[in-house]
């Protein structure tokens, strides 16, 4: 059935074409603002997430906190054993497994004393987990690589010698020679190694000085495919922790979650800014609807006096608001694709994520919100029209 009230609304919109168009433009702007802001935020989020994911392909395995049984002596040997390492290698499959020794100690460069971490690593593994910015990697027995922070604080150069260990008058401290300096990693280190403030030595040198030849402080697993993260973690957990919790398995996926949630609140914030334009649009729709009602008072009087139900009059004006909303939402939706795409490519420089569902969804969502805003703005004018006194309305010239 073709509704005569819808017809009347269409004709009213056509009759006041310019005014209706201007009101719809408000909705267009609102829809475009919401959609493009939403898409901008989402695209940013998707891109940052992708960038972060490339750095989280490391699982760090550390010995679990040792709980001493009452009466039993606490073993000083609280590392990951050779047997456990073999189990980890089994469970990790094709992925690279890197055992790491670590201790905290004092060191001296000339007359300057410092304190930091000493890492013992197989020289072959170093290039896989660290980035040497200057000099070379470890080749000789007493070669060392230093972190960026230590290097700058002590003005370390290639060839500088460092005495390792607590100063002890009766013993000559071992000496390593700096062969390389690592690039700074800051807080973005995702492999559980805070290398900025560390001295890296070969595992053989480390064992010779600090012992623990078959015990490690940490084992890293570098994943070939980051999507297998949970799978590999589960496999290691099942194998090594089968009887009781002996190692802790951690990764930096939680950091992604926190960065994502920060970005998503940022998106919400810019969406809120976008919504202000819809508020402005709502005011203009409200204004146009009120004008339409007050211009048609006599017509409303005629409709009511010859037997139109109040609900039917209300419907007529709600249709009108709805038509304005549809026009605004459709134009707004089309423009959102164009403007949203331009904004994303200009501000993010990457439109690879633009047509993904989680980004493009903002267009129908924006259109829907725009239409709801229109109908809500039309509620009061429609209510006012339908509740007029027909006698007064008829008398209105």
């Amino acid at each position, binding site marked *: *059935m*073709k509704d*005569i009230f819808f017809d*009347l609304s269409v*004709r*009213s919109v056509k*009759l006041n074409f310019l005014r209706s168009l201007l009101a719809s433009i408000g909705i267009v702007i609102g829809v475009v603002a919401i959609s493009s802001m939403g898409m901008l935020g989402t695209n940013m989020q998707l891109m940052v997430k992708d960038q972060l994911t490339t750095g989280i392909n490391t699982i760090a395995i550390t010995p679990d906190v040792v709980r001493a049984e009452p009466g039993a002596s606490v073993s000083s040997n609280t590392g990951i054993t050779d047997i456990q390492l073999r189990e980890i290698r089994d469970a990790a499959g094709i992925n690279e497994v890197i055992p790491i020794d670590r201790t905290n100690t004092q060191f001296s460069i000339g007359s300057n004393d410092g304190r930091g971490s000493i890492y013992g690593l197989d020289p072959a593994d170093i290039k896989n987990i660290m980035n040497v910015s200057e000099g070379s990697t470890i080749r000789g027995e007493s070669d060392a690589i230093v972190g960026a922070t230590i290097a700058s604080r002590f003005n370390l150069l290639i060839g500088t010698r460092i005495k390792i260990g607590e100063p002890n008058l009766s013993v000559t401290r071992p000496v390593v020679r700096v062969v390389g300096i690592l690039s700074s990693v800051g807080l973005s280190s995702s492999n559980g190694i805070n290398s900025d403030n560390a001295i890296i030595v070969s595992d053989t040198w480390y064992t010779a000085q600090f012992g623990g030849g078959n015990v490690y402080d940490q084992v890293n697993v570098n994943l070939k495919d980051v999507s297998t993260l949970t799978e590999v973690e589960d496999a290691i957990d099942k194998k090594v922790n089968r009887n009781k919790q002996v190692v802790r398995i951690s990764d930096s996926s939680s950091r992604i979650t926190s960065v994502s949630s920060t970005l998503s609140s940022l998106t919400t914030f810019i969406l809120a800014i976008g919504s202000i334009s819809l508020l402005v649009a709502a005011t203009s729709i409200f204004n146009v609807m009120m004008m339409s009602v007050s211009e048609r008072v*006599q*017509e409303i*009087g*005629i*409709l*009511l*006096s*010859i*037997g*139109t*139900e*109040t609900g*039917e009059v209300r419907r007529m004006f709600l249709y009108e608001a709805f038509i304005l909303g549809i026009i605004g939402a459709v134009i707004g939706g089309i423009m959102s694709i164009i403007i949203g795409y331009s904004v994303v490519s200009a501000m993010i420089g990457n439109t690879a994520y633009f047509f993904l569902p989680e980004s493009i969804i903002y267009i129908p969502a924006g259109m829907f919100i725009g239409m709801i805003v229109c109908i809500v703005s039309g509620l009061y004018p429609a209510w006012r029209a339908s509740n007029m006194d*027909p*006698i007064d309305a*008829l008398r209105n010239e």
Partner: protein
Amino acid sequence: MNGTPLIRFADVSKVYHLESGDFTALNHISLDISEGEFVALMGPSGSGKSTMMNQLGILDVPSTGEIHIAGKNVASMTNLERTHMRRDVIGYVFQKFYLIPLLSAYENVEYPLILKYKKRDTTGRAAAVLKSVGFDEAMSTHRPNQLSGGQQQRVAIARALVNDPKILLCDEPTGNLDRKTGFQIMDILVGLHKEGKTVILVTHDPKIAEYAHRTIQLEDGRVVES
């Protein structure tokens, strides 16, 4: 008079509360109008004619007293029932025609049918009624502002008739028309009365009032002659 009259005013008063004090537009009016009557309502301006028409048209309710139309007490009806009564029992013809400007002549006539049956007219009734009042079929797609006064009033009468009401309320139907057209419109009303409609007519013009069989004279809200 056979049985209950179609319209009964029993001690009806209408008081408007204005800032300048209360204004009594209708003052204890009692009268009956039977089915098939042709009544002219006359009186100087301010005598209560319009208020009386609003009461007859169920657009308003009395302050005191009771009005029964087609056997129903107006004051005890819900808003929706009054709306339906206006749609089904009463046909209005106004001095200023009051056609819906956004609808064509034909659609204006069809409109009350849509209100009643909630669908477009497929029976041809709207077109038939429009033809019966002598409206040129070729003009039926024109909007009201493209029609002459006489044509508009014909459309308005057709609109009033299309739901086959018992009562036809005509508020100065010839007031905005030239004399010749006015008499043509009156001829239509006389014809409708002959077909059995109860016609109630408000007019200033004694010549027009002559068409009626009964004249009710109002003065200061009272019936002075009936």
